[in-house]
Each structure stands twice: as structure tokens, then as C-alpha cells.
């Protein structure tokens, strides 16, 4: 089932009165069901913070976030976890070093009181293209790409509708990145996931996303379709600079 995401005037402010610091001054965007929406921008521009707000890992925000038309703030934790899951940037840091893959995948099933655990774990690990024997491995017995697959399996096991991808491939080699991007692409086609993907690599955006938002200092400067990248059809100066730099960096034009 695909869900839409609607984010209106999302803001985070620290402190009150004249010294109040606005971290996110007000972010508004909407994601269609089944769309892959990219968030790009320089470090510190608030891309990951938006994901953390959507997932309620950060809950001090104001504004509205609606997932499938329902406010995420009112969603009970259990329901929210089945609705959305997050894949983090660094597969070396996001898996518990002393838990086997089986433990990692089993825990959400226990918490959510789901049956057929063995069956579900096997399916999740097969879905991400790993052999079933890997269930008994520990993170140190896996390569970076395999770890990221496990992290994706962990996100898939609760059958969410929305996946929040926080730079899922930036810690990986290009050869491994290709495998993970292909995997994410395939899963989206098969299951109709909605993705919100944070990345700094416009080539990845061009490959994966339908539309993307360019962020700067916590604000969305412009939302662009992927077709705007090759000819740099952005209008905002920062978005132009970003796309221009990426094109120059690729040396393609």
C-alpha cells in the first residue's frame, strides 16, 4: 500500500523570545503515494532533521506532518513503526555489534507480536538478496554492503509503507552502491513503497527520485523534477549552484 506524505510549516525553534534560534524555519512539501522524493542540500541544511521529524525521532517540532492523511504525531508508536521505517547512513554504526542478524530482525517481530517469525525473517533476508544462512552472522562478519542490506531488511520486516532513507549509500563503494540502489529500486517497483531519500549526490537523485527538494539553512529553496538536473533548469541561485557544481564535478558537460 502506498501512502502520501504531507509536510506543512514544519519548524523547530530552540528557546523563546528574541534569542530564539530557528533551526528549521518552516518546511513545506508533499510526496505522492509511491513517489521517490529526494532531499538534497549542504551539510547542516536540515535534510536529515526533516527525516527525524517525520519519523518522530525528533518530536520538538511544530507544524503538521500527515502520512496517508493522518497526523504522525497522533499515531500510536506501534502503528507509526508499521507505517514508516528508516535506513541510516552508516551501516557500521547502525547495527548492534553484539547482536546477530537474527536478533536484529526478530526484535521488531516480538515487539509487534507478529507470528511466523522464522518465515518472515527468511523472507526479509531473501528480499534483500542475502542467503538465509546470514541470519546467524554478526555485523563484523558482514561487509559494508551486506550490513546495509541487513539494515534495509530490518526496515522491511514490519512491512511499512514509507521508507525514510538517510544517505543509504554514501558510506559504500560505487560497486556496492549500485547493488543497493538496484535493490531499493526493485523493492519500490514490487511493493509500491514511498521513499523520502536524503542524499548529497545528484547522480543518485537523478537515478532514483522523481522529484527533489533543494534545502539551504533549513528551508526548501526549490522543488524540482529530476528532468531539471541535466540542463540545470533550477531558478533559485543556490539550487543552480548545487546542480552546476554537480555537473562540473561529473565532468559530463
Amino acid at each position, binding site marked *: 500500500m502506498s501512502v502520501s506524505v504531507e509536510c506543512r510549516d514544519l519548524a523547530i525553534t530552540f528557546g523563546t523570545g528574541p534569542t530564539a534560534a530557528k533551526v528549521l524555519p518552516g518546511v513545506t512539501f508533499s510526496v505522492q503515494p509511491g513517489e521517490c522524493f529526494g532531499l538534497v*542540500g*549542504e*551539510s*547542516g541544511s536540515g535534510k536529515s532533521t526533516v527525516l527525524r521529524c517525520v519519523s518522530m525521532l525528533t518530536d520538538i517540532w511544530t507544524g503538521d506532518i500527515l502520512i496517508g492523511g493522518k497526523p504522525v504525531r497522533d499515531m500510536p508508536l506501534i502503528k507509526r513503526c508499521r507505517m514508516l521505517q528508516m535506513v541510516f547512513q552508516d551501516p557500521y554504526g547502525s547495527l548492534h555489534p553484539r547482536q546477530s542478524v537474527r536478533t536484529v530482525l526478530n526484535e521488531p517481530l516480538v515487539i509487534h507480536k507478529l507470528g511466523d517469525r522464522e518465515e518472515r525473517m527468511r523472507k526479509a533476508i531473501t528480499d534483500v538478496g542475502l542467503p538465509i544462512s546470514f541470519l546467524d552472522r554478526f555485523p563484523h562478519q558482514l561487509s*559494508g554492503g551486506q550490513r546495509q542490506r541487513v539494515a534495509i531488511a530490518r526496515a522491511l520486516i514490519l512491512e511499512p509503507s514509507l521508507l525514510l532513507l538517510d544517505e543509504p549509500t*554514501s558510506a559504500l*563503494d*560505487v*560497486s*556496492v*552502491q*549500485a*547493488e543497493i*540502489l*538496484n535493490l531499493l*529500486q*526493485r523493492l519500490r517497483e514490487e511493493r509500491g513503497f514511498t521513499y523520502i531519500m536524503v542524499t*548529497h*549526490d*545528484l*547522480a*543518485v537523485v*537523478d*537515478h532514483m527520485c522523481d522529484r527533489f527538494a533543494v534545502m539551504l539553512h533549513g528551508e526548501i529553496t526549490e522543488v524540482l523534477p529530476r528532468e531539471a*538536473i*541535466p540542463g540545470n533548469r533550477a531558478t533559485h541561485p543556490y539550487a543552480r*549552484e*548545487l546542480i552546476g*557544481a*554537480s*555537473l*562540473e*564535478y*561529473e*565532468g*559530463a558537460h
Partner: protein
Amino acid sequence: MEKTILEVENLRIRYGGAPTDAVRGVSFTLGRERLGIVGESGSGKSTVGRALLRLLPGATITADRLRFAELDLPSLSEKEMLKVRGRRMSMILQDPKFSLNPIRRVGDQVAETYLRHFRCSKAEARDKALAMLEAVKIRDSKRVYDQYPHEISGGMGQRVMIAMMLLADPDLVIADEPTSALDVTVRLQVLNILDGLVRDRGIGLIMISHDLNLVRNFCDRVLIMYAGRIVETLAAADLDKAKHPYTRGLLAAQPRIGGGRAPLAVLDRRPEWLEEIA
């Protein structure tokens, strides 16, 4: 221009307790140029860089020849090495989060390079450090000077580290993934700074990276490493004409702006790549 700074012949490195060599018979020479070393994680590219600075305690390093300018690196004592490291040969590391001292102000860490290698007052070192921070495009360098590593972004941390390593004006800079933590807009600026220094001062640069675009744009020559060996050496401009299937596989796996949305090519690793030598 073509003066050789570094000569490496048949370099082999084995980590303590490891059953096999991590680097197996690597040879190359470096003039006043920008040399890229590319490969995946685990290919031994960083190990080569660290071995040159002798930063691998416990590892066994052997080579038929390992010369840096007029120095024979293996025969130097640790005390002599201290005068080389940071002064004549320095290394820009991968991750500023782990490479900067978390409990010292970043500016003091930059100035330390200067204080350590030159006779000067603290105020002088501070001025040098501030100028260098500005050279790496840190706005408001006076404020950043007094900040701690956790107060600055990863991108800024990397620029601080580049400032630190270039402050002593070395002959050879080894940059180990210097810009993987930086945004693409900043990345180009930083690479242009590095580039400027290499050209103006005749510094030799070894750029260790997994990023083919980076070495294509900012290096003169590229070595491609796989499993501890050099499988191919190319002029950076000829990267697209690479012959080795590994290099071609890496190029094909990369998504490109304006490319099709077909699944990306996945590397098909051949066992024979492990043994052949370019």
C-alpha cells in the same frame, strides 16, 4: 617539473597477525604531479598511504626501494621520521570526527603544526593558522578558531584538517578521501584549493579515493588497485579508455546525471584479478 619526489618499488605490507599481505608488490613513482589511487574499501589504497608515513604500528613493511626526496624512508629512525611527518610529508585523513582531538579548540590544533616545526611565537602561529583557515574558505575564521570539533560541521572539520596539513607547506601531501565528507559545492572549492597549492608550490599529491569522478577531474595519473595490487595505471584523461574489466566495472556501476534508469551494472568479480599484475 619532472623531479621525482617519491619512488616506491615492490612495496609489500602485512598487518601484524594477518595471514596474507594487505598490499602485494606495489610500485610507482611520483613527480610534482597529482596521482590518484582508486579502489574499493579493503583494496589497500589507504594502507599504502599510511605506510609512506610509517603510520602502521605492528605491520611489516618491505620494499625494494622506498625513497622520499633524498631520504631512504625505511632507514630513518622514529626521531628523524618526526621531522618528516607533518613538515615535509603530511596526510589529510578521511574522517574529521575521529581525526580531530575532541577536547582541544580546532584553531590550536591547526597552529600546533606550525609551533612544532618552526621557531615562532604563539601569536605568529595563531596568525598563520587563521590565514590558513581563511584559505580553506572558512568564513568567520576567528570564531571557528576557538570552537571545538563537535561545534563545527563535518564539512568544516575536513577543511580544518586540510588547513592543518597544508600549514607547514610540505613537499608531499597524501590525501586519504579528503572530500568524501564534503558537499559537492564545497568539495569543488576545497579541491581547487588543493589544486592551487600543488601547482603553485610544486607539491606532490597522492589522492586516495574511491570516487572516480574526483580522480578524473583532479589528478594527472591514476592507479587502480584491487586486492592489494595495482591492476591498471592510466592517465586521468584516459579513464574512459580503461582496459581492465575491474576498472570498467567500477565506471559502469556509477549512476550518472542524465543516464538511463536501467538497473546499474553490478561488478562481477573474477578470481584471476587477484593474481595478475599490470
